[in-house]
């Protein structure tokens, strides 16, 4: 099993194997939440989460809406 390291929301994150965006989001228990995901600053539409495979060193941002003016 290969260990893969990505940067998730600014911090190093270990994946146990090659993973899709959908799998990462599921691992974080965020699948049905109002979030958006970008990989290397490219927004990945929800319908493309399954087909988008993460690579070592990918920079992933998972965002949500919070209070702000």
């Amino acid at each position, binding site marked *: 099993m290969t260990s893969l390291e990505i940067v*998730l*929301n*600014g*911090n190093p*994150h270990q994946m146990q194997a090659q993973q899709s965006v959908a799998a990462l989001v599921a691992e*974080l*228990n*965020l699948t049905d*939440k*109002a*979030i*958006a*995901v*970008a990989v290397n*600053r490219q*927004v990945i*539409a*929800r319908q493309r989460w399954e087909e988008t495979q993460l690579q070592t060193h990918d920079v992933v*941002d*998972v*965002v*949500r*809406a*919070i*209070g*702000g*003016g």
Partner: protein
Amino acid sequence: MSQAHSSFTIAGKTYNSRLLVGSGKYKDLEQTRLATEASGADIITVAIRRVNIGQDPNAPSLLDAVPMSRYTILPNTAGCYNAKDAIYTLQLGRELLGGQNLCKLEVLGDEKSLFPNMPETLIAAKTLVADGFDVMVYCSDDPIQAKMLEDIGCVAVMPLASLIGSGMGILNPWNLSLIIERATVPVLVDAGVGTASDAAIAMELGCDGVLMNTAIAGAQDPIRMARAMKLAVEAGREAYLAGRIPKKFAASPSSPMAGRVA
């Protein structure tokens, strides 16, 4: 009050309330919910931030308190200091909101003044408009640059009345009037309101709406202040439409002189 006078349109969609509110600085989500309700606002702006990994994913979220089914959620770029970050943030916001193009662009100049960085704002606006966004834009109260933003295709220009969060009120009504006079898109005051009279003054000048956050969330009783702001925006709008009397340095009695007993 006729509906036609109270409602207004941004990017082809009509809204009943001319008061737009932020969602920051509240004590908790319940206070956010109650104050937003009391404000009567249709549009509520939100920040886009990274999820705290490891935090309970099932904890109540902002969009539970102010659901998309009830409000138009306006993603903003608060905290962005260049066009690139602002564009990226709004691309994420659009995805998060299921493809909604309406957004609030603000590119800040420095942390102390939170004044807009207008060159970067113009660059970001151009890119976002070309990418199909309906951009409501926080800007300086410079009528020339406000017009530039309109010419780029922004759907609303939103000059500051005074510094964000300062509560200093309407510092330069003359510049706001110049912007309003020339604009063919809605003009909203986007920062600086401190209390109800400030909101009323903005509306009396002819602004199409007011966007505020700190004035409500920072009040001792935010829910009551939200209601006050709702009434102030309505009163200011009505006064604008009614047409105020000119100011003159002379008294004029309100009662007739004829028939006095004295």
